């Protein structure tokens, strides 16, 4: 099968304000297949966000190469959608306008179909009443949901999500997870999903990339053999519980970052 995203021996070093250097990534090799759902887990500061920024083309690696559809990434590309770790909403736009913003920003106009879709997504994230509010009037979790809805409005080939559910309660989180799976099923795409929840990673992914820190590198890549479609029942599947424990043990056996 053809690779959609390739990271070959990627290293990333940042120069810091105090004159020091921060080695964020070292020798990272990653090869993601078409329409694969991959999760990244790893300790805080191991370089997960950095990997997403490298794939999106927002950042150029200091060594190694990042390719998408086989082409070296030198700048952001059209087929990528992104959920940032911070909600990153535009404070002067209403919630609805924030959701349709990618269309406005990319193409200069928002079609009626997109407006309708935005309202659908608003419903899905449970904020139907908040369409005309400003981001500043939402709670942290609400803002995060708006930024997820924004990334789902257009239908990119590659979706990069940086801890999208971190500020959500368990219930909302599960709902959003299943919604995401449904959308991914309907319109397959390659998803790279950063999370700190092993359950979440297992529930959603085809493969889980386990990283470690200082310097950030890939420790292990785990295949998730759970059958699809996944649903509430998956959460009680013995393989699920077993794998969750295994990964937890693996993660906890490391030294902390």
């Amino acid at each position: 099968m053809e690779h959609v995203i390739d990271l070959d021996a990627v290293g990333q070093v940042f120069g810091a304000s105090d004159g020091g250097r921060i080695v964020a990534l070292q020798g990272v090799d990653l090869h993601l297949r078409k329409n694969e759902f991959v999760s990244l887990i790893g300790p805080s500061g191991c370089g997960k966000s950095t990997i997403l920024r490298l794939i999106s083309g927002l950042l150029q690696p200091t060594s190694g190469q990042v390719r998408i559809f086989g082409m070296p990434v030198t700048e952001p590309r059209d087929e990528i959608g992104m959920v940032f770790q911070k909600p990153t909403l535009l404070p002067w736009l209403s919630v609805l306008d924030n959701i349709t913003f990618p269309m406005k920003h990319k193409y200069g106009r928002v079609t009626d179909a997109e407006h309708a879709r935005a309202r659908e997504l608003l419903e899905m994230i449970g904020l139907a009443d908040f369409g005309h509010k400003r981001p500043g009037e939402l709670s942290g979790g609400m803002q995060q949901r708006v930024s997820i809805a924004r990334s789902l409005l257009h239908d990119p080939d590659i979706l990069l999500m940086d801890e999208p559910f971190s500020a959500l309660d368990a219930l909302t989180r599960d709902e959003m997870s299943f919604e995401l799976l449904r959308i991914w099923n309907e319109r397959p795409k390659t998803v790279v999903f950063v999370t700190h929840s092993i359950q979440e990673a297992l529930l959603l992914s085809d493969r889980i990339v386990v990283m470690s820190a200082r310097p950030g590198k890939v420790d292990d890549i785990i295949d998730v053999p759970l059958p699809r479609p996944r649903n509430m029942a998956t959460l009680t599947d013995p393989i699920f519980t077993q794998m969750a424990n295994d990964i937890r043990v693996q993660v906890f056996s490391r030294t902390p970052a």
Partner: protein
Amino acid sequence: MRALASRYASALVFIVVLIAWQLICQFAQVPEYILPAPSAIVSAAIGLGPARWFEHAAATLQVALAGYLVAIALALPLAISITRSPLLSRIIMPWLVVIQSTPIVAIAPIIVVTLGAGWLPRVVITTLIAFFPLVVSTALGLASVPAELVELSRSLRASTSRQYWQIRMPYAVPYLFSALKVSITLAIVGAVVAEFVAAEKGLGYLILFSTSSFRVPVAFAALALLVLSSLVLYGLVRWLQARLFPWSQNAGH
């Protein structure tokens, strides 16, 4: 009562100042040729007749507004160019500083000689005086956009022009308006300076004319009208901001 007092505080203070002024002039016997009393100013103003006042005020405001609009039309593209390219910024900025720090009165003869004695040199002078704060403040606003919003725009592969129009410009609105407020008063001052250099009417001309014949009350009446125009235009800019960009007022997004 309290709230009312606070609402009309500025008007109140204004009236108190006016009364104090009148009393000081009357009792301290301040000569009219230094500081005329408000009553003297009012009667001097009435003496000239409304039609003539209108003519002078219209001349000055036309120049001020034309210069202001040209300044805005120049400053925005300049601010954008500066923030867009460090090279352009390195080339343009020193020239802007040069223009800004050139005392206009010194080069006014060149301007008048080159552009003739009509309204054009006056508008040019006004523009030269009003546009620098606009450029500097807008450029700061455009450059201050949080990195994450720029990344959002970049990740969407939006054209730079959309990045400017939909992200940087809205973000810079409070900066822009802060400069628009400074500049509108500078535009009025600019129009007056231009009239000092070459004009046959206008409030600045009237001030020059009256002070040089030591008719200070008329000059003060013209000054009052000028200041009033400034206050009204300043208020208008604020009102526009409140109307068009209500979110930009308490800044701090």
